[in-house]
């Protein structure tokens, strides 16, 4: 008698029981839902303007009026943190989108073409991944100049190899599989084969990798903004806010601590969800 030990395909989508079994995962999930909703409409929770300065109200500690206090220009920190979610999250997500699309296409091309094309793409990926992500992004921004779009571009490019490598490897495996050979005997065209049978399996793990990568991308984005490479003031981006708050840490801790906490919690939540998803996909229960 043989017992099937392979991962049932149904398992992957059983998010609910997973949630119920795990407090950390639930907390992460709720936090992310919260972040997502403030990204969509930050005015829901706060009516203060995140940009307009009001020097009379500067550096007020947290009170009932201003939950997180106000910064050196008298802006409500709570409101700025809420509005900042949009920038941090969108930069991370857009960078991942670039990496996913370009990386998957390169990987697929590399895996299908093999030979010379594969060699060239692989060498290119080797060069890109030889530099640490953050350093590469810094180099790219030094060419393009600071700014939100340049930051997205730089982070996206730096993450390409991760996706390209996985998709390339999977493409090799899937292209040799029995069902691709079988489909070939039906007289299907190469395009149909790739589209129907190779691509969907080759990119199976990409969403999971992207979720895990999103956490790193948000940290990198905040870090680069901190260095002034990202959105420019007065944009309420978390990294930039942290950078401003740093100067006042001694007498107004709340200006820097709240955006810092926002970054930390978001990245932890994204990572927890991503890792757990990966574990579920691979058929493990816990990380």
């Amino acid at each position, binding site marked *: *008698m043989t017992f*099937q030990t392979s991962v049932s*395909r149904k398992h992957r989508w059983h998010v609910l029981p997973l949630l119920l079994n795990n407090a950390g995962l639930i907390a992460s999930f709720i936090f992310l839902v919260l972040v997502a909703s403030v990204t969509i409409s930050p005015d829901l929770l706060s009516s203060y303007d995140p940009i307009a300065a009001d020097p009379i109200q500067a550096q007020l500690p947290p009170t009932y009026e201003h939950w997180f206090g106000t910064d050196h220009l008298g802006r409500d920190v709570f409101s700025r943190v809420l509005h900042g979610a949009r920038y941090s999250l969108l930069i991370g997500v857009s960078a991942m989108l670039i990496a996913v699309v370009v990386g998957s296409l390169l990987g697929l091309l590399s895996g299908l073409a093999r030979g010379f094309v594969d060699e060239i793409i692989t060498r290119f990926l080797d060069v890109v991944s030889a530099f640490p992500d953050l350093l590469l992004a810094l180099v790219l921004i030094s060419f393009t100049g600071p700014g939100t779009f340049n930051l997205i571009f730089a982070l996206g490019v730096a993450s390409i190899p991760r996706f390209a490598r996985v998709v390339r490897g999977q493409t090799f495996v899937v292209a040799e599989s*029995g*069902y691709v050979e079988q*489909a070939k005997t*039906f*007289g299907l065209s190469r395009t149909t084969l790739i589209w129907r049978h190779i691509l*969907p*399996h080759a990119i199976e793990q990409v969403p999971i990798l992207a979720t895990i990568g999103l956490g790193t991308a948000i940290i990198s984005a905040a870090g680069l903004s901190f260095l002034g490479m990202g959105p420019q003031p007065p944009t309420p981006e978390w990294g930039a806010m942290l950078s401003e708050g740093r100067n006042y840490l001694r007498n107004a801790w709340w200006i820097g601590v709240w955006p810092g906490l926002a970054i930390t919690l978001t990245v932890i939540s994204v990572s927890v969800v991503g890792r757990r998803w990966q574990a579920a996909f691979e058929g493990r229960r816990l990380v």
Partner: protein
Amino acid sequence: MNSPRPFLYIRNLTIRFPGPNGPTEVVRGLDLTVYPGESVALVGESGSGKSVTARALIGLAGTYADVKADVFEINGEDVLQYRERDWRRLRGSKIGFVLQDALVSLDPLRRIGQQLSDAFGERQDLPAKYDRSLDILQSVGIKDPERRLSQYPHQLSGGLRQRALIATAIAQQPSLVIADEPTTALDVTVQRQVLDLLKQRQRAGNTLLIISHDLSVVSQLADQVLVMRNGEVVEQGKTAEVLSGPSHPYTRQLLDAIPTASSRGYRLSPVALEHSDEISLIAPAAAPNVRIALPQKQIDAGRHVLVVDRLQKRYGRSTTGPLAVNNVSFELAAGEALGIVGESGSGKTTVAKMVLGLVDPDAGNVWINGQPWSRMDESQRRPHRAGIQLIAQDSLSSFDPRYNVEKLIGESLDAVGIFGDNRRRRVLEVLDAVRLGPTFLNRHPRELSGGQRQRVAIARAFAPRPQLLVADEPVSALDVSIQAQVLDLLAELQAEFGASLLFISHDLGVVHHLTDKVIVMKAGQVVESGDVEKVFAGPRHSYTQELLAARPSLN
């Protein structure tokens, strides 16, 4: 009277596994008595409970298994109270276990010598172990044991590997050796070697418990046989008596399912397969010995669908390496079935791939309906591909796991331009032809049993109404009784649709049963070819004679 004490004495053994709907009984009321020096066989299909029973004998039925019995004695000890520590004392020293697949049961990263010395347990010192290892390898018929001890499993051939595995099981000279499907998935000549080795041990007075789905294997070895079905023993007795006059219809059915020379032209499974049902068939008791004839094939000997002309193929870049296929030629007439027989590595699958146009030959040509198939461009070939369909050995890997049965079968109709309602109608029609109902449309490959999968593969192959079917070992992964049903379906549909069949197998019985002509391949070359009955009745080439002599027969 002082009768010898049985080594195994089991009464009313029941094994349960917890399940979502309460516990399931996988073994019910099994009685088993094995005396020293006896050899006993457990026979049944997958799921009949034979392997679990065997595992229970060494305390490895599983963490969740609930093993109960009125009496469960091994070597006079009551093992029902055994704890893991007690079982460990028993394993290896009193009972040796030979698992089915030597390739996965031997650790690929450890030398044979290391694995053998593991098998000695934790008592003896090293030099003695070395000498004992040499003795044991020699006793399982491995020549040159010094060299083999320092080799890794992948450096051994399939036969040597299986012997090495048996060597690890008998290392501590256990009183009982349990062999779980020891020859399944082996080539005939290798199977012969392993059976001979076990038979030799049995003659030397060793106790043996063999587990198999194949009655012809069992008939070679066992004094006593237990036929199991759905967890129960349906028949039990002396092997010779059970095989010559089975009293239970299920045993009869298992015997009938074995494809042989005498089954040619007749069905192997007792009644026409009921819809979506495959295991619970029982021959009607009224007609135990009546064979049902298969429909007549319409062979048009004048029209050659497939002509293979001096094919040659060498893999890799070297120009000096061995040829995978060397000068192979044959032709296949419309409606005819041709078998290609050979052991693994003989090049038969490469021939199939060249016929399918998946691999291009280095020299020679494949002609399909008078067209030079191998010399065509892929774009020219594509419109004709639907006329040649493949039934693969491992149908699970030939199915896209994301697809359900409807899409799996439907996809073969893309190239012939059948879409929409017509497609659905055609899919239902071929599903019906393989006796699967419309409820299967939404099933995914993993939700199908082995036999059902192979039936879906057959339905898919017939869906575009091909002229030529290439079946590469389509039944070699199936139990004998499921194999019988699949072979019957294949024969029926082939006759009904008038397709030609290129049937590749290492099993001579299957080829003899199903095909009209046969070619025998060895090391890439055709050593003998002709009418299947002539070749098998009077083989001229020594290799064919060797193959035929090696297959286990029922008597």
